[in-house]
């Protein structure tokens, strides 16, 4: 058998609550800025939580009105981030039959669904937009990107709630490794800031209710954390087969070296307090990448700021990494971006790539009193330098349903 095909990252794109592209988002992240704000929509005061993290740059500022009216907001995010990532990768010349798209969403076009249902009730069936179905389908973001770049190796949308974005990147990684494609546009998006999903999350007691200080509400690992802050936006990475990237002289950010996937089989929404599924995912990911816990210097945690989830994850990290957890700088960037659900694992992968490039772990903000149950080394308030030389970093992403995804990013000489 020939040598294993390697997968590298050659382009980045993002639109997030703290920046309209990958580099402005990264700068805001290092500066510790929060994207959470009080919502100005009338409906916001009809539900228990009236704040969220809207994107810093609305799609209407960067896309034409006519294009936007046929797109769900999540699809617009996917196109915006993909165009940036594609350009960042140098707009590669690639055989279309070797180009794929894997872009996930946790909930799909939920705002389109709800808005069109309002139209159906108020004005009748004839007024329902003919674009309703292509706008609400969860594969819509991936499909639109596939159309734009004429991808013909396959267009896919893994759905695993808040693990979706990471699962998409893992799926793309496998597609290249398994020789189904040479280049993949991969990532995750979410646009679910609407009364119904927010009321639903609030009914689960999953959302923070700290409405007097939205920018202080997302506080992973803080003793007084009370839930997550809903965010919107997305992130996209161009994954490319290593030799393909080298042959065209592409800028190579880093390598994706492995992934670990497990499921809890425990509860539809609650994390398994043992964290055994998370531990197994970390072990599988490291083994898949052919590295050990000693090589890991940084981890972007799932850490959403819920009372149960953060500690369960931290315990699992400590158990999986053992003593080597002492040299792993753990960052919980949802403290700044809020929780982008299906977009989370994707923007956090963008952050890992930037962290490896700049050798800086981004901060975790809003920790006033670190929960003593958290026994990992959390990067607080300011970025922290990462070592020179060969390093590896992990992305933890978990989803309602008990989905666990761990991705391994590695520096490339």
């Amino acid at each position, binding site marked *: 058998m020939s040598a294993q095909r390697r997968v590298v990252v050659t382009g980045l794109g993002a639109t997030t609550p703290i920046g309209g592209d990958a580099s402005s988002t990264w700068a805001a992240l290092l500066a510790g800025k929060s994207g959470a704000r009080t919502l100005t929509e009338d409906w916001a005061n009809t539900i228990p939580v009236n704040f969220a993290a809207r994107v810093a740059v609305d799609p209407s500022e960067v896309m*034409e*009105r*006519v*294009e936007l*009216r*046929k797109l769900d907001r999540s699809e617009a995010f996917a196109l915006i981030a993909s165009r940036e990532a594609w350009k960042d990768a140098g707009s590669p010349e690639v055989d279309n039959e070797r180009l794929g798209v894997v872009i996930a969403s946790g909930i799909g076009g939920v705002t389109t669904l709800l808005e069109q249902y309002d139209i159906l009730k108020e004005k009748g069936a*004839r*007024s329902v*937009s*003919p*674009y309703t179905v292509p706008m609400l389908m969860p594969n819509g973001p991936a499909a639109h990107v596939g159309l734009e770049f004429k991808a013909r190796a396959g267009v896919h949308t893994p759905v695993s709630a808040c693990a979706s974005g990471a699962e998409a990147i893992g799926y793309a990684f496998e597609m290249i490794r398994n020789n189904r494609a040479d280049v993949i546009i991969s990532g995750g998006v979410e646009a679910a800031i609407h009364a119904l999903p927010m009321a639903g999350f609030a009914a689960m007691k999953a959302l923070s209710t700290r409405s007097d200080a939205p920018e202080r509400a997302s506080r992973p690992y803080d003793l007084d954390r009370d839930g997550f802050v809903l965010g919107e936006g997305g992130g996209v990475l161009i994954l490319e087969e290593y030799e393909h990237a080298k042959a065209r002289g592409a800028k190579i950010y880093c390598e994706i070296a492995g992934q670990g996937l497990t499921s809890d089989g425990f509860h539809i929404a609650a994390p398994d307090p043992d964290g055994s599924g998370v531990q197994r995912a970390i072990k599988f990911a490291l083994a898949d990448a052919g590295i050990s816990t000693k090589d890991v210097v940084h981890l972007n945690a799932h850490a959403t700021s819920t009372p149960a989830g953060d500690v369960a994850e931290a315990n699992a990290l400590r158990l999986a990494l053992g003593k080597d957890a002492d040299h792993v700088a753990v960052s919980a960037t949802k403290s700044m971006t809020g929780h982008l659900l299906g977009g989370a694992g994707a923007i956090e992968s963008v952050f890992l790539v930037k962290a490896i490039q700049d050798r800086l772990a981004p901060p975790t903000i809003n920790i006033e009193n670190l929960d003593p149950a958290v026994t990992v080394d959390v990067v607080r308030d300011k970025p922290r330098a990462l070592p020179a030389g060969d390093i590896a970093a992990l992305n933890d992403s978990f989803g309602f349903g008990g989905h666990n995804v761990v991705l391994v990013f590695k520096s490339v000489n």
Partner: protein
Amino acid sequence: MALTQADVLAGLKEIVEEVAGIPAASIELDKNFSDDLEVDSLSMVEVVVASEERFGVKIPDDQVEELKTVGDAVNFIVKASA
């Protein structure tokens, strides 16, 4: 009261501009919706529903595929309003 051809053309121009982003100035009677104005089958549904609302006429689904050009639509709407 029957609408005039000029009234309908002016209104239809606004609708096509709204739906497809084609500047009203370039929309003329002989323009074909799909070939010249990038109004695909889904966008055509929007044009039809908006026209029904605006001109107070009914455009049955089986008539829609006969409306190839802006002129076809204008003539249909003028007749239907009579």
